[in-house]
């Protein structure tokens, strides 16, 4: 694996860090790191959440200042005090949350802050020509007059990259660029990143997806708890060596053992011919008691819409949903929750959590009825139950009265599980349950899911990570363009069969 780059040893460093440290209050984000980024290389940073990789990127982008140590740009000691200064030096970032003006055109967005003028006025003609020439130079085309808000996430990302190129970027920091992309879009992005590096642009690539990192990088730097463990040529690393380096432990098996479901186990959910116009059609499948069913497919294949329809958020146009032998008519979220269906939604920040409120209030929210009477909410009983749910789902916290925004990503994700566990659900729908969490948290979320199925709860697991689907499911459903394109069981579950079904028309 790894990209072959002949100049690797001789290339000059664009940016070097010497003994840099950075703390936030009591947390040491970086401790005496020595690292350099060479011109034209793809240099990945890997590590668990909180290892310091994003901090390093943000220092380069001028968002944070160093506490101590030196930063050399082309051998000269430099200080970056603001994001503007970074951009002027040609150091640009592409972040997970895109920073675009959704109601403006592609050209407007790319040229933002760098519009060309004739005299006092902005010349749209000159500006557009300049943007087109950048598109030409890097072979990266988009309709210049499209409104950015109407583009897909992948295309919006291209707009950001073009904006970086238009400002003569010499170094681009990609922070988790593929977290929101489907796998074919990911491949396109990798191709683009490679060709940028060939033109001499330095790429810093931050990602949780280790296969991606291994295939795309020239060099990989491994960080753990703010310290640089090593910088190595990508070819000399493997997934196993990276995980061991990141966690500091030998890699155990990431996935717990999933118990097989017996053939005569009771069917708890039966979906037949379920259809919602322009989202999905004629979906039929069933889930047995204690079974983990994986639902795979690209973003936009209709899988999240299907999940929300089963959960009662959307009404089906046609078809039936039976839960424990009873047909759910006029479904609503409230009804689903009462019947024992719980959901871990796709995005914990926008759909899952109320960040400025306490663990208690977040976790008990869907089940407040249980603690309410004419005298109001019984806070004592609520607290006892919430603490029990936290213990069950291994949420680490300093007290259930603290606001959830102070917890790590992995723990926030587990709060969604604690919330679901409050209702002792009979069916859990988990949409991307491990997105954006580190390997340690991932592992414990997998164990949680396995434990649920052990006690007879059923799980519908939706995920973009094929390994997760393979490692966790008793049975796998694949969706493609709104249709169920495969139902796989036992030895038929593997990467090849899932990928084929994913791209089936």
């Amino acid at each position, binding site marked *: 694996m790894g990209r072959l780059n002949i100049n690797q040893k001789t290339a000059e460093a664009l940016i070097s860090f010497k003994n840099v440290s950075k703390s936030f209050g009591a947390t040491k984000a970086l401790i005496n790191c020595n690292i350099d980024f060479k011109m034209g290389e793809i240099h990945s940073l890997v590590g668990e959440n909180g290892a310091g990789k994003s901090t390093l990127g943000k220092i380069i982008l001028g968002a944070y200042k160093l506490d101590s140590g030196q930063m050399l740009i082309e051998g000269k000691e430099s200080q970056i005090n603001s994001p503007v200064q970074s951009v002027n030096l040609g150091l640009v970032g592409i972040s997970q949350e895109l920073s675009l003006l959704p109601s403006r055109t592609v050209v407007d967005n790319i040229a933002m802050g760098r519009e060309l003028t004739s005299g006092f006025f902005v010349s749209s003609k000159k500006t557009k020509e300049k943007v087109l020439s950048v598109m030409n130079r890097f072979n990266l085309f988009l309709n210049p007059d499209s409104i950015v808000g109407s583009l897909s996430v992948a295309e919006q990302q291209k707009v950001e990259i073009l904006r970086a190129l238009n400002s003569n970027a010499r170094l681009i920091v990609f922070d988790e660029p593929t977290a929101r992309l489907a796998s074919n879009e990911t491949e396109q992005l990798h191709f683009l990143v490679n060709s940028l590096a060939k033109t001499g642009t330095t790429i810093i690539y931050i990602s949780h997806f280790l296969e991606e990192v291994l295939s795309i990088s020239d060099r990989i730097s491994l960080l753990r708890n703010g310290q640089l463990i090593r910088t190595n040529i990508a070819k000399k690393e493997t997934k196993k060596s990276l995980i061991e380096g990141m966690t500091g432990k030998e890699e155990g098996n990431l996935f717990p053992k999933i118990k097989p479901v017996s053939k005569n186990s009771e069917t708890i959910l039966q979906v037949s011919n379920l259809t919602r116009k322009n989202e999905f059609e004629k979906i039929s499948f069933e889930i047995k008691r204690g079974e983990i069913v994986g639902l795979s497919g690209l973003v936009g294949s209709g899988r999240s819409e299907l999940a929300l329809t089963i*959960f009662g*958020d959307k009404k089906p146009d046609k078809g039936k949903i039976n839960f424990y032998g009873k047909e759910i008519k006029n479904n*609503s*979220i*409230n009804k*689903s*929750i009462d019947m024992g269906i719980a*959901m871990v*939604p796709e995005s914990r920040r*926008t*759909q*899952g*959590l*109320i*960040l*400025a*409120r306490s663990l208690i*209030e977040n976790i008990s*929210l*869907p089940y*407040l*009825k249980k603690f*309410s009477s004419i005298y*109001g*909410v019984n806070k004592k009983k609520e607290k006892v139950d919430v603490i029990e749910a936290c213990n069950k789902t291994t949420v680490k916290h300093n007290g259930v009265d603290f606001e959830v*925004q102070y917890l790590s990503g992995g723990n926030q994700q587990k709060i969604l599980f604690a*919330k679901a566990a409050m209702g002792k659900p009979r069916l859990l729908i988990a949409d991307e349950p491990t997105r954006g969490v580190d390997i340690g948290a991932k592992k414990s979320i997998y164990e949680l899911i396995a434990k649920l199925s052990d006690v007879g709860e059923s799980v519908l697991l939706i995920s973009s990570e094929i390994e997760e689907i393979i490692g966790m499911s008793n049975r796998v459903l694949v969706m493609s363009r709104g249709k169920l394109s495969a139902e796989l069981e036992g030895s038929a579950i593997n990467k090849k069969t899932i990928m084929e079904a994913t791209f089936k028309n």
Partner: protein
Amino acid sequence: MNIIELSRKYGIAVITISLFLILALTTEGFFTERNIRNLLDQQSTILIAASFMTIVIISGNFDISISAIFVVAPLFALNIENATGNVLLSVFGGVGLGIILGAFNAIVVTYFKVNSFIATLATSFMFFGFGYLISDRSLMRPVTDTYQQIARTKFFDITSATWIALITVIIASILLTRTRFGRNVFATGGNQEAARLAGINVPMVQATTFILLGASAALAGIVNSSRSISAQPSDDFSFVFSVLTAVIVGGTSIMGGKGAIWRTVAAAFFLAFMNNGFNLLQVDPLWQRIILGLVIVIAVALDSWSQRKNV
């Protein structure tokens, strides 16, 4: 908890109590029974509306139209009183009108999905118009002597206006902190999508907050008219600004999801003490408003600053 968090949480209470102590020790005429009773009486109308305004703002909305409800409800109540001579009926009628107008706001905001600021600005004009309509564009006075007793009856030497305010504040606080409805208000303002996916009927929660505020603004208007033994149609927006000032200086976030009624009460008294102190010290009213403006800027800036420190 560190000092920033502590000051963020209890700052307004500390500041209010400090100001009280400073004025009590330095300003003659401040800490007298009469002055304190007057202060409580004067704040009653603001407190009645501000408690429920706090709830509306926590749920992520805004309501400008309480000024108009404050004007139109007592006119309606006096219409009933003039016609029937029944004061109790007139109070129910006035509050009932507040409920209906609040429900109208609720429909515009939750059903037609109009931004609440714009929606209630527009309905304000309608409600002010109703005021002229039902009063024949003239000042109205009660025909009974009982009407003025609504606000002026004394229990334990304290006016009924103050008692009504106290009861309203307690009811609103209990609703917000002890009930499922209160939790749903915080959830709706904090993250509407997450609230919806937790099975909360978000439009219903928001509608309820508008209706409760409509009723309380009407009650405040009736108390006010009882105190002044008259009511007059007008286009006067000033009531909502006094109420909003108390809510915002108290530190309830305009973005929704955060806040408390005790903070609004503390801020209302802080502003009242300041105003009262200025008057007793004979500060030029010109300077009073400049300082008031500065205090609001500082309160809002402090809030925004402490938010940044926390993320």
